[in-house]
Structures are given as C-alpha cells and as structure tokens.
C-alpha cells in the first residue's frame, strides 16, 4: 500500500470518529487543540506549540497526526 494511502486510511477513521464525537469533545476540550490517533484523543493543549512539543516528546509524529481545534463558538471564515 502506498504511504499516502496508509496516512489517508488512518485519517479517515480519525476524522469520522472526530465527527461522531464532536459534541462531547467540545464539552471536554472547548477552545483547545486536540490530537487524535487510532480514533481517540491522545493529547490536548491550548496552543499548537505546546501540543506539537508534547507529541514530539512522546515520539508521535505531528506531521501525520490529525490535529483539530474545537470550540463552542460559531466559526465564520
């Protein structure tokens, strides 16, 4: 399997999980960045720098990890 496919397969599972659990994630992690891997939150932080530092320290590659920001607030792009 091509490496892109491996990343995408895992990301699809994590993104689906994120969508299914979005409401409870917002309740628990409001205004936080959360890293999701293997369909579960593995770390959270109030800013990207701290989250990336934690992931690197834990031996988890942030480059291929799903990282989402959650908020109760409306998002207007």
């Amino acid at each position, binding site marked *: 399997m091509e490496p892109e496919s491996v990343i*995408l397969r895992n*990301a699809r599972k994590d993104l689906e999980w994120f969508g299914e659990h979005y409401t409870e994630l917002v309740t628990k992690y409001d205004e936080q960045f959360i890293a999701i891997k293997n369909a579960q939150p593995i770390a959270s932080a109030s800013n990207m720098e701290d989250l990336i530092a934690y992931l690197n320290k834990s031996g988890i590659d942030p480059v*291929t990890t799903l990282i989402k920001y959650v908020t109760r607030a409306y998002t207007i*792009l």
Partner: protein
Amino acid sequence: MKIPLQIIDEQIQVGAVFRAPKYRTGLALIDFVVDTGSNVSFISPRDLMKINFPQNALTFKSMNYIGGGSSDISEIHDIVLAFHDEDTNLVKIPLKTFHACTSHASRGDKRARSMLLPSVLGLDFLKTADLSLYTKPAKNIAYLERI
C-alpha cells in the same frame, strides 16, 4: 470518481496528504475545510507549523482578509494533494501553484487567532482540479466529483 467529504459541525472537511518536494516537507496530513466562498486555497498558519514548513521559502503575494483578521498569502509551487476516492483508490492532484497563509503577528491575541484558522480548499482548487462539489447537509452527504 468521487472523493467523499465529512460534514462536521456544519463544515465540509476532508483529509489530504500534502507533498511538496521542493520544500522537503515529506508526506503530511492536512485536513481542509472546503469553502466555496474562498477564492484562494491555502495551508493555514497552524498547519504550516505542524508540518514544519520552511517559512523562509515563502514569497509574499498579497494580504488576505479572513475570519475578521488579516494574514499574508504566499505562493508555493509544485505540490501534490492526495485523496482517497469512494473505493479508497489514491487520487493524486498535482498543483503548480498553491498558497500558504501566515500571520503578521509574532505573539499575542492576533497570533493566537491566526492559529485558529483551518486550511482551506476554495473555488480555485475546484476549478484547477476540475472537481464539482455536491452536498446535501440534511442527509450528511458531501463529495467532490470529477465526471
């Protein structure tokens, strides 16, 4: 060919693998918001940080007004975005030009706000990649399609 999208919190989202050999970033997961209201597609400040993109390689092009703030838009060149179609076949879309969005501010509230921006696939991407967007939010259906 259809690329399935997710509708999460009333936003259309999709994961893609970003590759930019010219910038030596390796393979990176970027999750995009599909926003047809945007005339430019870009990698957000937080995703640039996440993938360790070499910011000194960026060439400023213009200012961008988004989400109530302003950011710099720079062009990046010769990238590939890879997606899975509905049969999990790899769909690679080479793009001669894409964009990186960076914040003016180095710290403080403005910088913090810029980190909240997601990466965006706008109408320019759909046009270049010859993709159509179909969405039926009431049925939680969304996909990109190339006929």
